[in-house]
């Protein structure tokens, strides 16, 4: 069963492929060039500090996602489990550690490089989860690389100026540590510049995602999961800004011309939680066949921050890093979801209960039940995982999704 109308692909994707290639080749080059330094950073960590201090920044979570998307995680995770990392803990972490222990990487196939660039410094923030701390420490211990981290206050309701000052102070401390360790000096004007670039890319990314507000939606969550790469990997660069400007132009054109990601869209649903990387394509096809657009997601919106106002760059970074959805309490999360449902005219919400990422799973404290009762929003919880396909049942999930759309049909009658 497929929809009759023809699918029109997003053209910018071709350009994205070339950008990614250049990005990874350059990182590979950096790791072999003694005059350059590579830092690894968590995806919503203080990467602007590293860029401003001249480091080339690599984001290991992307490697985890790639291992999942290439469907090799489940073959590599046992290596990490053997080394003492539980199969029930973050499968980005276990598949990444497993790939290191096995000496294989999807980056070889994709870009012809040996693997992730060798780090000089490992930097994390636990604003997303504690797992990253132990993930980075694995490499720190094993290869004797310095590990530096920020542990901001978590699960916040209101974000106060005290919270911001605390995190900004920790960032200042980290800068000093890096200065001492690597005999560098932070150029604060350069930091403001990088933060401005970072926030500009992030704001443009927000506008890109907003094109899914149109009916039909110009893009889906599955497109977003691909096109978000520059806002994570190339944050703080003009390249990311240029890419999103051209993507936004293309998508705005689609909106103007009434071209939808799903041409004869019937329903609009929301995706909460992590993508299921090994099954992204199958899921995208399933929703396409059901003429249901996944118009918005918590995941893609996690990199759409408020724009930098030109004030203290560390304050902006601190605020952005703790205002994140994942770092908030249930009530704040529920309010955010309610706003998203309104903005994107959502008919139903799907919660991905990711077995190895409780941090990015929001169905474990009654949220689906509350939004159903309080917002009259149909909800579905699907069990799966971000990377480890062994926690996923295709038949069961597809039946659940089909039944959910049947439920939406029934409501429409």
């Amino acid at each position: 069963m497929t929809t009759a109308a023809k699918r029109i692909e997003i053209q910018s994707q071709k350009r994205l492929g070339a950008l990614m290639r250049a990005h990874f080749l350059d990182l590979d080059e950096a790791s072999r060039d003694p005059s350059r330094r590579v830092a690894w950073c968590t995806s919503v960590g203080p990467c602007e500090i590293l860029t401003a201090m001249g480091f080339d920044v690599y984001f290991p979570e992307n490697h985890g996602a790639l291992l999942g998307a290439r469907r090799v995680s489940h073959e590599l995770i046992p290596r990490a489990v053997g080394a003492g990392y539980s199969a029930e803990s973050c499968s980005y972490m276990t598949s990444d550690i497993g790939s290191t222990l096995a000496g294989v990487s999807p980056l070889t196939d994709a870009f012809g490089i040996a693997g992730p660039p060798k780090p000089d410094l490992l930097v994390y923030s636990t604003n997303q989860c504690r797992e990253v701390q132990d993930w980075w420490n694995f490499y720190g211990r094993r290869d004797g690389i310095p590990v530096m981290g920020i542990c901001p206050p978590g699960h916040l309701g209101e974000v106060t100026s005290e919270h911001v000052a605390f995190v900004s102070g920790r960032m200042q401390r980290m800068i000093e540590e890096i200065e001492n360790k690597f005999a560098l000096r932070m150029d604060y004007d350069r930091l403001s510049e990088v933060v401005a670039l970072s926030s500009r890319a992030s704001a443009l990314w927000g506008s890109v995602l907003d094109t899914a507000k149109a009916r039909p939606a110009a893009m889906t969550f599955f497109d977003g999961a691909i096109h978000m790469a520059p806002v994570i990997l190339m944050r703080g660069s003009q390249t990311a800004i240029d890419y999103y400007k051209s993507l936004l132009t293309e998508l705005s054109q689609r909106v103007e011309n009434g071209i939808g990601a799903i041409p004869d869209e019937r329903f609009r649903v929301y995706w909460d939680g992590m993508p299921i990387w090994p099954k992204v394509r199958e899921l995208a096809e399933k929703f396409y066949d059901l003429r249901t657009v996944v118009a918005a997601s918590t995941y893609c919106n996690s990199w759409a921050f408020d724009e930098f106002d030109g004030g203290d760059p560390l304050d902006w970074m601190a605020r952005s890093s703790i205002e994140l959805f994942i770092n908030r309490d249930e009530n704040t999360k529920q309010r955010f979801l309610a706003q998203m449902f309104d903005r994107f005219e959502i008919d139903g919400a799907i919660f991905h209960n990711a077995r190895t990422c409780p941090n990015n799973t929001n169905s474990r404290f009654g949220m689906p039940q509350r939004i159903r009762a309080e917002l009259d929003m149909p909800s579905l919880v699907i069990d799966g995982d971000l990377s480890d396909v062994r926690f996923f049942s295709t038949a069961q999930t597809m039946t659940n999704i089909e039944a959910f759309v049947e439920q939406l049909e029934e409501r429409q009658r």
Partner: protein
Amino acid sequence: MSSPLYVGVDVGSSATKCIIIDKSATLVGHHVISSGFDYAEASEDVVRRALLQAEGEVEDVAACISTGYGREHVKIANKHVTEITCHARGARESYPEVRNIVDIGGQDTKVIRLSDTGRMVDYRMNAKCAAGTGTFLESTAHKLGLTIAELDDLAMSSKEQAVVNSYCTVFAGTEVIERIKSGQPREDISMGLFRSIATRVSEMIADPEGATALTGGVATHCRALLRALEEVLEVEIFLPPMPQHAGAYGAALLALKLQLAEKGADTPC
């Protein structure tokens, strides 16, 4: 050609069921066979046999809806619909007041919640695991050297029940051995297994308000399951006339509705 027939085929992981109704929604034929490895063949076979009972021919089939795990393999189907919607439809037809439908199949267990107007408002499926499913019972019965029917007979004669805490098929097996070693009667241990399923099901019920129906293959063969569920959920549970066929029945009703809707007529269901 005799009167038009409406066919529902439910291709489950263990059994394939077929229900045939006529235009007034009266049951005229039914059959169940093992699904085997070839779902297309099983569905053809089950329809042929049900048609024999209905004294009809394939040409008399006005509409067919397939459902279940192998729903996409039914060649004769005009449309496929999930077993969740079909079970809800089938159970509601047999028991209009029903609000919770518990369907225990070979590989999964579902709980479907209906609104007071019969609209599906929520449903849950067991997580990817045998806990709370027919497979759990089958496997544990097998370890005890019993068939499911024998396990059911034993459980029904239980006076006091032994507690089996584990949902996991493997752990439950170990627990059962421990109970045997501690001298607990086989009848009570058997009932404990059914209660373990009932407890698992109780976790899937968001709102116990209103009438509850039990459908699915396990319900057909196990009186002890009904008893365990009634005790754990503390409600009276309704068993439709052919619990294993509830999905196929719902599919047949939806086939009738589909055909009448295409003709623009009012639907009796």
